[in-house]
């Protein structure tokens, strides 16, 4: 009798929690879609902010392009480092002490508040290295933020690779590098790409790291790595924070959410394809 009650309570807890989450997420998205869809037009997507104050009219093209470029730089930089770190830890590191130290560092990095990472980017990249407030500084700062996110996922995927198959490969006298490039990485490719895309969505939505390092209220589409850049989340922050235009803010939020949503769907599609092939 007691057991039945417990399991009923447990079920209730699950159902209620799920409903609360679904309803609130649905409400947020629905609200933004309803309010934003009115101001969305082709013109909004393909033109620059206009009007006085700036942004009250016109579109958000430079912010869309800026956000995508920031994402590319962040993902490129972070995955370059993360892939190497994960491969080192899983396949080359002989000492478990070093492995632990790397894990602790990665975990600490994941826990650093994004505004602190932004301040780090400002002092180190913008001021010390003299890169200025630019697309490059902001992209690299975002890269620092998503690095642990990518590294942990790639490492997990590499770790899951069959030990027996690895041993068999080494037993044929084949080198570690060949084993990695011909056997392990092709098998983990989807997981790796999925981790990077997911991180891209994360990077695109982040505001704190870019406020001080490169995002500006208005800039044309960046012409080089050293130009300042507009970004969707920062533009959104300005539109609402300065009370410029609530309508445009909803529309901007809608565009941002749609982009992140699309990126996540790509990532999920990649992971599930991997599972089908693997079975």
């Amino acid at each position, binding site marked *: 009798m007691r057991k039945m009650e417990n399991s009923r309570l447990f079920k209730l807890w699950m159902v209620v929690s799920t409903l609360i989450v679904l309803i609130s997420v649905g409400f947020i998205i629905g609200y933004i879609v309803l309010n934003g869809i009115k101001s969305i037009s082709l013109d909004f997507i393909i033109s620059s902010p206009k009007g006085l104050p700036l942004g009250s009219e016109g579109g958000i093209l430079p912010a869309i392009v800026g956000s995508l470029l920031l994402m590319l730089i962040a993902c490129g930089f972070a995955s370059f480092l993360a892939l190497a770190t994960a491969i080192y830890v899983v396949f080359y590191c002989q000492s478990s002490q070093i492995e632990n130290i790397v894990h602790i560092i990665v975990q600490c990095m994941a826990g650093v508040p994004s505004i602190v990472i932004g301040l780090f980017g400002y002092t180190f990249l913008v001021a010390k290295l003299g890169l200025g407030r630019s697309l490059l500084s902001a992209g690299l700062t975002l890269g620092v933020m998503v690095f642990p996110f990518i590294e942990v996922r790639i490492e997990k995927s590499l770790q899951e690779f069959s030990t027996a198959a690895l041993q068999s490969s080494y*037993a044929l006298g084949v080198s570690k590098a060949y084993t990695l490039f011909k056997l392990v990485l092709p098998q983990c490719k989807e997981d790796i790409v999925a981790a990077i895309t997911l991180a891209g969505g994360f990077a695109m939505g982040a505001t704190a790291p870019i406020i001080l390092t490169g995002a500006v209220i208005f800039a044309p589409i960046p012409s080089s790595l050293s130009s300042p850049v507009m970004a969707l989340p920062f533009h959104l922050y300005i539109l609402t924070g300065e009370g410029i235009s609530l309508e445009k803010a909803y529309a901007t939020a809608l565009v941002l959410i749609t982009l992140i949503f699309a990126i996540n769907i790509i990532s999920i599609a990649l992971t599930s394809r991997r599972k089908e092939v693997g079975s």
Partner: protein
Amino acid sequence: MNILELLSLNSYYGHEQVLYGINLAIRKNAITAVIGPSGCGKSTLLLTLNRMLEECGGRAEGEITFAGKDFFSYPKEEIRRRIGIVFQKPSPFPLSIYRNLTYAPVYYGVRDKKKLNEIVESKLKVAGLYEEVQADLHKSALQLSGGQQQRLCIARALTVEPEILLLDEPCSALDIKNTANIEQMLLKLAQDYTIVIVTHNLAQAKRISDYTAFLLNGELVEYGETKKVFSRPQDRRTWEYIEGIYG
């Protein structure tokens, strides 16, 4: 002729010694069976012989002569190529059947498509797998049955033309029919290769091997022609093991 001679070989995992002073001479083009109860060091012996022991966190000491030269003077990759190993659990690569078999040859520089096809076909035939899989060489090796996977692993070990083939209980996970298939294949292979097979199955050792080595607690208790070892064992412990008194 002896292809491999072991002189007071000791193997360790960390501080734990697993093999004690093994003296063993492996005859060329013969099948040598290594028998003994679980945990007696049979698998460690095989891992030592193709230098996979280091990969598993162990090390070996002693004198080994391979093809007339000091075993430890060869680069370990060369040893692994010339002394192949097949593990107990079938471990095909998560690739197609074809790619499983071309994986190592491509690494060793075979690029010619025709040559690769030849290798695939001939090794599959040797392993008695060709008829069963020829219709679709490009399906995933993971879709094969356990017995087929193990025969594929043997074929894969042969693609690098080893001189010695080590097998670690290759049939322990297989049914009678697949076991018979593999035994047939090994008898045929012994014409061209030297085979060392670790087995739990005494009947199997009796059926296919020319020489038998009995290991107990990391020591070589008895080694000789299979017929003699099974009919007139010299050591009491061998007799007890064969009679099923322990193990």
